């Protein structure tokens, strides 16, 4: 409770500072709206449904792309960990492409897929995939050989070994790779939505973009806050419980 109050106080002070900066008129009100204006915008956008619609569209792109990235990345990571040939080829490719900021895929995606949902998905998948491949491979390679040996003597082999020993043993690595993949996917999707206007749906990134076009700073800041909150919620709802479980079981710090 005390921690919660302190955190709440921190954010209250932050908003007060913002309000003070607005009142001091250091910047033009066009550039820095008041917290009140931002709240008013958010209330309006929530009431007329634009906010919800944009959030749903963005989350759908994010989740579908992320899941495709996971479904492709996990097996690829296992292959690269298991066979040298895959390690030297796919593994090297993954390592290289992971260093590429995923916003760099946007021009290519536009040329290949045009202004479509497929372009969005492609960018999100590229953001997710390589981190997941690399984390899975690292995780599998770091499984202590003694686990395999112990399992072998008890009669575990092939698929049982993969699913009941190697994958669970690699779980801490895989989860941190999933988390990184999620962060990259989120960033790349926002970049893609800001750059690309597509007719199939207006996401949060596009609302942000039009806020800038219309010089509606309360919209820009309001959407930014929404994006931050979604990121926080995803972490708290999805990743925190998994990390807590890992922390409890393994007794390691997952900071």
């Amino acid at each position, binding site marked *: 409770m005390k921690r919660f109050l302190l955190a709440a106080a921190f954010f209250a002070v932050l908003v007060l500072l913002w309000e003070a900066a607005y009142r001091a008129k250091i910047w033009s009100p066009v550039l820095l709206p008041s917290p009140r204006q931002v709240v008013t915008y958010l209330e309006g956008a929530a009431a007329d449904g634009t906010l919800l619609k944009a959030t749903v569209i963005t989350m759908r792109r994010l989740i579908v792309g992320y899941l495709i990235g996971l479904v492709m990345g996990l097996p690829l990571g296992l292959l690269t960990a298991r066979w040298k040939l895959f390690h030297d080829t796919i593994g090297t490719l993954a390592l290289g492409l992971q260093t590429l900021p995923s916003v760099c895929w946007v021009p290519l995606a536009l040329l290949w897929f045009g202004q479509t949902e497929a372009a969005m998905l492609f960018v999100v998948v590229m953001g997710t995939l390589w981190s997941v491949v690399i984390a899975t491979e690292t995780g599998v390679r770091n499984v202590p050989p*003694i686990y395999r*040996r*112990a399992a072998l003597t008890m*009669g*575990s082999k092939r698929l049982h070994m993969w699913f009941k020993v190697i994958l669970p*043993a690699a779980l801490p690595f895989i989860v941190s790779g999933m988390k990184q993949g999620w962060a990259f996917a989120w960033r790349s999707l926002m970049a893609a939505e800001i750059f690309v206007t597509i007719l199939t749906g207006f996401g949060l990134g596009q609302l942000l973009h039009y806020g800038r076009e219309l010089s509606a700073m309360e919209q820009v800041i309001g959407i930014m806050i929404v994006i931050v909150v979604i990121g926080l919620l995803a972490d708290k709802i999805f990743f925190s419980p998994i990390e807590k479980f890992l922390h409890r079981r393994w007794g390691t710090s997952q900071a």
Partner: protein
Amino acid sequence: MHRAGRHHSSATEELQVIAPSKLAIENVSKSFRGASGPVLALDRVSLNVAEAEFVCLVGASGCGKTTLLNIIAGLEKPDSGTVLADGKPVRGPGRERLVMFQEPALFPWLDVFGNVLFGLKLKPNLTNKDRCDVAKYYLELVGLSRFEHANIHELSGGMKQRVSLARALAPNPRVLLMDEPFAALDALTREQLYGDIQEIWKARRKTIVFVTHNVREAACLGDRVLLFSPHPGRVQEKFTVDLPRPRDINSVDLAAHATRITKALKSLGQGEAIAAK
């Protein structure tokens, strides 16, 4: 016992004491690639282990005793020679011969109960209830019933090795292979485990091959103690320890045996030092 036409067994059957194996190791050689050419870890080693015998392998580190244990387990293949368990050649790892490693190889993603259950789940023809009953029985045997749902990292070193022991015993193997299982424990915990392992060995009738570099430990546990010499690994000398059980590691009689073995071990070291010159 199985009646004709019966396909499932129950926990009570699973918990019956089964006949231990006898092991015959015949002319086993194994070499490794070392930094300066191949190293002969085992040189034509032959030995027999009787049913329900407790045999300890002692020797300096690097004398091939762990390699021999791994070969018996089927985790490594010998370059030449064979290992027979009850007359049948060992071709790979199997739950007839379970291993307890020096570092507890417990799975951190499972709790204590899950670890003991792991090997049982791989045994066909058991119902889940049987498996749970069996796991509970062995956890009780090693005195850890209260820690069924503890996570592995919450256990002390001694408790971890008790769980490892329960996990190795649960699938009811005929042979138990132990690779310096108590080396990393403190003296007090070790002494307790010496008592426990002798009791369990008596109750469950297993053939045990126990690798250690602690001579006193070997004299305390083994019916026989085999002294290994390094470079190349060979069985140098065999000692029979005919003290009554349960044995106390601190007893004077035991010390006499240990002294005899230590002397032989030391003379080996000197022989090697002379050879090196």
